């Protein structure tokens, strides 16, 4: 199955990319997508704490299971306002 991954702020800058497609095994979780990303994009390994994660624009925990086709976003603590 495939998901679309979005990266923001520091993560976008580290990865030098704001979006990518990932092919994943069935049963993948949001957290496992992050680990896969860090394998593929070496620069993201410098970011050692778990990022915030969202599936289809809603916050999720790392154990949330994906069905395929979702938009999965990773980002640092927010600082808007």
């Amino acid at each position, binding site marked *: 199955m495939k998901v679309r991954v979005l990266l*923001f702020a520091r993560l976008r800058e580290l990865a030098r990319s704001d979006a990518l497609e990932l092919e994943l095994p069935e049963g993948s979780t949001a957290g496992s997508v992050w680990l896969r990303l860090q394998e593929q994009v070496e620069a993201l390994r410098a970011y050692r704490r778990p990022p915030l994660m969202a599936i289809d*624009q809603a916050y999720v925990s790392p154990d949330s299971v994906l069905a395929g086709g979702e938009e999965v976003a990773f980002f*640092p*603590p927010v600082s808007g*306002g």
Partner: protein
Amino acid sequence: MVRMVQRPIDLPGLLRLVQGGGIGGIAVFVGVVRDHNAGKRVIAVEYEAYPAMAEKVLGEIEAEAVGEFGPLSIAIEHRVGRLEVGEASVAIVAGAAHRREALGAVSHAIERIKQAAPIWKKEWYEDGTQWLDDPGLPGTELK
């Protein structure tokens, strides 16, 4: 009504949105780019957002405010892009029959925006830039 915008905040437009015969008080909060932070002189800031999710979260924050403070008319606008010192980054406007509901809704909304809206701020200094996401992160040093 929530809006992520790439132009200056339109406060008169927001105020028009919350008017109506039953409104007795309008409260407003405007966040403004400050010329210093944590002892450093700031020359500009840049806001980045996850626009679709930010609008969703801001909409949820409006619904929360109505749930907590009762019938009210509320509008939120957050700007993204580069802003100079003194420019507004966010405005929240709430109209209600009575002052406490309007002021309570605005206070609640700005706290929740800072906690939950997927928006990030980078400060520009004379000698570099810095994301304000997490001072403890590796790579947080000035670039």
